[in-house]
């Protein structure tokens, strides 16, 4: 294992080359993948807390029949923002941030493939999220569901700006998701450490790679359809207007062609987290690595063939629906393969401690099984006809999405917090967080299955007494409050441990992947030496990725670690076998990503006021792109052995 003391000269040299700028510029121009990744995650957690607050408000309003805590208008904004936040502003951005932070560390790279694009993606995400919540603050939040069905969201029925904010900001947000996906794909395929052929890639990286391809194929459908709705609303088009020959069902097809893969976009990386955490705690490699990877790939592909199961009730012929039912049920198989791979891993493993990341992973498996079986049921067309859009569905998808995505995200936070911060999260508070959240979750959502059977529809701000829904709704609200208590413990744990947690050291869990070989938090350059990978578990394999040492490495390989021209360079390898192919010079911090994001904001946000601002924003964006790509002499770091401080 390498440490910076092993070669102080090399450490000083790389530190100087990869050092971030100072002061306010550091904030505005940062492009480093760890800075951007962390920003994504922290911002996403803030949105998680906001969505949680909305959920609590929703549950309080539904605790008893005919309560007046929220007006119908306020309730509709709350449930719309809760869904939109969890789907668009929390789950996907958090997982992207996690990937942006971890992927280069896991594949032995020093930076993402396109650092400035990375920073651009973050600014777009931040601006879109803040705009949506800014609108909410003034009562102009979207109010017709996260799925925004037409014609209710057409200009005729919702003439206000509420829906405009959804249409423009969600489209804008997906730009961020797309650029993140593109650069993750390139980073994974071209910047893996020498020797890390595809079959040696960590499962988490596989999951992220597949997810990124899914984003590339799914998000454009959403961007297209929200652009069409924007044209309908702002420019008098009639894509969705039945009276003028349009078709409201077109929206549903395009939306769910994005929407269902999006569910797996949130699930797959989370599953990758669990496939990473369980082997580390069981002190053994993952069982059925190939099967798990092939399953993830199968889920990614199948998820594009099931969107109609959101539309069983629109009046299609039964025969056609049965094919989508079969495809939907088929997804169970790759999911089951992963579940049994985890069970097999634990079965033959040695579980010395059930620390919080493992607790959340086990909780995930339980909830994922329960959400999975209700998923099989609602794939059955006749049952779906009855249960569609009832609270049974609310229960189902919270088991799948909170169980399947939020629980693994908590596992990831407890697992990698020591790497990011250098301190461990408190284990005792972690257990409290887990148990409050797990018990609260089941108390809140299990009764919803029954409430759904009793006929309570979704998206209602209240209900009349005497329908047999009162008691279970109250119970569900109690559960939601217990979950909220779990979140308070979690936030307290984050804040307290950030400031005063126990020092973690580079590898608190005995991990198998490359990120655990760096210091915690990692140096600006990530790896002192370019690692050489010889197996699936580089830190458990023998010989270590740091052999041969710098002195005995071939000259070309040693140079890659030395930044000989004082440039930010990193190795480029072949896509499949990770043979070294050359060196890429990575860009330095830049203000252009922020400029471009702001320029596009003028277009997207301006469109709500007047369409004339769209070309203005595009002109500004053109200026930004010219500046971004302007060829310039690479200014070398003023590097002087004497001047560089020894301490990082």
């Amino acid at each position, binding site marked *: 294992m390498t440490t910076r003391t092993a070669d102080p000269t090399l450490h000083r040299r790389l530190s100087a080359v990869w050092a971030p700028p100072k002061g306010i510029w550091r904030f505005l121009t940062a492009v480093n993948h760890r800075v951007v990744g962390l920003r994504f995650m922290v911002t996403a957690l803030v949105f998680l807390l906001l969505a949680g607050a909305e959920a609590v408000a929703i549950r309080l309003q539904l605790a008893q029949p005919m309560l007046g805590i929220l007006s*119908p*208008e306020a309730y509709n904004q709350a449930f719309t923002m809760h869904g939109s936040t969890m789907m668009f502003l929390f789950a996907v951005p958090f997982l992207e941030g996690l990937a942006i932070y971890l992927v280069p560390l896991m594949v032995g790279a020093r930076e993402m493939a396109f650092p400035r694009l990375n920073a651009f993606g973050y600014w777009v995400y931040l601006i879109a999220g803040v705009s949506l919540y800014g609108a909410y603050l003034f009562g102009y939040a979207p109010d017709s*569901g996260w799925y925004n*069905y037409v014609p*209710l969201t057409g200009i005729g*029925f919702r003439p206000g700006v509420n829906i405009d904010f959804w249409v423009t900001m969600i489209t804008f947000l997906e730009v961020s998701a797309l650029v993140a996906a593109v650069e993750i794909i390139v980073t994974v395929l071209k910047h893996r450490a020498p020797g890390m052929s595809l079959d040696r890639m960590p499962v988490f990286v596989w999951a992220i790679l597949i997810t990124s391809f899914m984003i590339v194929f799914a998000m454009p459908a959403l961007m297209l359809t929200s652009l069409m709705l924007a044209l309908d609303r702002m420019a008098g088009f009639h894509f969705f207007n039945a009276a003028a020959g349009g078709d*409201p069902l077109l929206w549903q097809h395009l939306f769910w062609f994005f929407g269902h893969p999006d569910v797996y976009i949130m699930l797959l990386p989370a599953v990758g987290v669990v496939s990473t955490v369980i082997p580390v705690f069981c002190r*053994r490699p993952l*069982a*059925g690595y190939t*099967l798990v990877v092939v399953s993830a790939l199968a889920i990614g592909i199948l998820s594009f063939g099931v969107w109609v199961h959101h539309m069983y*009730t*629109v*009046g299609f012929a*039964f025969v056609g629906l*049965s094919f989508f*039912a*079969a495809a939907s*049920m088929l997804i169970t*198989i790759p999911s*089951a*393969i*992963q*579940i*049994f*791979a985890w*069970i*097999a891993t*634990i*079965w*033959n*493993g*040695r*579980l010395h401690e059930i620390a919080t990341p493992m607790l959340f992973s086990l909780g995930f498996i*339980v909830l994922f099984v*329960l959400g999975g*079986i209700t998923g099989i*049921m609602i794939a*059955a067309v*006749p*049952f779906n*006809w*009855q*249960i569609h*859009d*009832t609270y049974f569905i609310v229960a189902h998808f919270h088991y799948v999405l909170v169980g399947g995505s939020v629980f693994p995200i908590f596992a990831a936070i407890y697992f990698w917090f020591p790497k990011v911060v250098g301190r461990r999260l408190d284990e005792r508070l972690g257990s409290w967080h887990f148990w409050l959240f797990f018990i609260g979750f089941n108390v809140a959502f*299990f009764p919803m299955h*029954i409430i*759904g*059977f*009793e*006929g*309570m*529809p979704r998206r*209602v*701000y209240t*209900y*009349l007494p005497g*329908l*047999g829904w009162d008691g279970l709704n109250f119970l569900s609200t109690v559960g939601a409050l217990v979950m909220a208590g779990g979140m308070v413990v979690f936030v307290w744990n984050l804040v307290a441990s950030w400031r005063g947690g126990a020092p973690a050291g580079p590898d608190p869990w005995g991990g198998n992947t490359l990120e655990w070989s760096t210091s915690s938090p990692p140096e600006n350059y990530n790896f002192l030496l370019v690692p050489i990978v010889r197996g699936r578990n580089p830190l458990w394999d023998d010989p270590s990725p740091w052999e041969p040492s710098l002195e005995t490495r071939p000259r070309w390989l040693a140079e890659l670690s030395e930044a000989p021209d004082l440039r930010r360079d990193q190795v480029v390898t072949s896509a499949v076998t990770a043979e070294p192919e050359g060196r890429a010079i990575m860009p330095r911090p830049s203000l252009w990503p922020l400029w471009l994001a702001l320029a596009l904001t003028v277009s997207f946000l301006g469109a709500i006021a007047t369409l004339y601002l769209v070309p203005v924003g595009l002109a500004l964006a053109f200026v930004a792109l010219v500046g971004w790509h302007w060829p310039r002499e690479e200014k070398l770091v003023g590097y002087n052995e004497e001047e560089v401080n020894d301490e990082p």
Partner: protein
Amino acid sequence: MRRWAASVLLPVSLSACGGWQSTLDPASPGASNIANLWWIMFWTTGVLSTLVIGGLFYAVYRARRHARDEEGDRVGGTERGFILVAGAAMPTLVLISFIVLSVRTGASISEPPGEPELTIEVIGHMFWWEVRYPDHDITTANEIHIPVGAPVDVRVTSADVIHSFWVPQLAPGKVDMIPGRTNRTWMMAEEPGRFRGQCTEFCGVQHALMSLLVVAMPEEDFLAWISDRLPGTELDDPLELRGREVFFEAGCQSCHTIQGVSEPEFLGAPGPDLTHLAARSTLGGLTIENTRENLTAWILDPHHFKPGVRMPPSPLSGEDVGALVAYLETLQ
């Protein structure tokens, strides 16, 4: 433990469901077939998921023991076999049987068990249901009367946004009401009774209280109900005559049809047809009972009961509203 409790308690608590909007208290062949499909799927997956979660807990117990004894890690070819059998072969068998069951159930309920003699058209509006009997030239709202024991053909569409028609105990699930399209479903009640339905596609600010009542009655009662629905009662009471004037003075006629009295000209957002208002048991789509007091309060301020409803408050004097209610109560 939880799982055990769930699999035992869920059927108990579900069997106790007696709500008049419950999916598990079916009163028609369509709803019964779906409920049967659910119970088969529930017991199958209930047993399987108990085994899986039990297996997970046992695996954790084993791994803890291995950690103490420094055993474990006997990784071999058996693991892949186990994953394939448990993760691929077993679910494949279950899923094939589920698909067969699902297709058989779906095919059996896609069409009614006999040729329907009665056709009803239901048109969704924000936030109420227009109900038409085209063969009998009757138009009413929010309440459907059907004869017992015979399938009824139901054709649904929407006048504005997408709604969804759902009477869980009587129909084979729900069907969306989409502007520009007409979808078909059917209902059948095996016994007389009152059954509740509700809009299940979010349709705007007052989606929550858009409910529907289906009254299933014996054939002869149904025919009597039909023949009692005659428009144009002769008015002789001066209070009622005054009420009809108020109906026009207050502008009610610009949205509400009363056959032979008021025929709104525009095709915009109509309110419910009031020709048979007094024959309905509720107001505001099951929001409140149709009593004199409630009707008076509703006319003065419907938003008190159903915020966001399209009908504006009518600031009428006590005298005028009394006359109006007296008139409306003649509309059988």
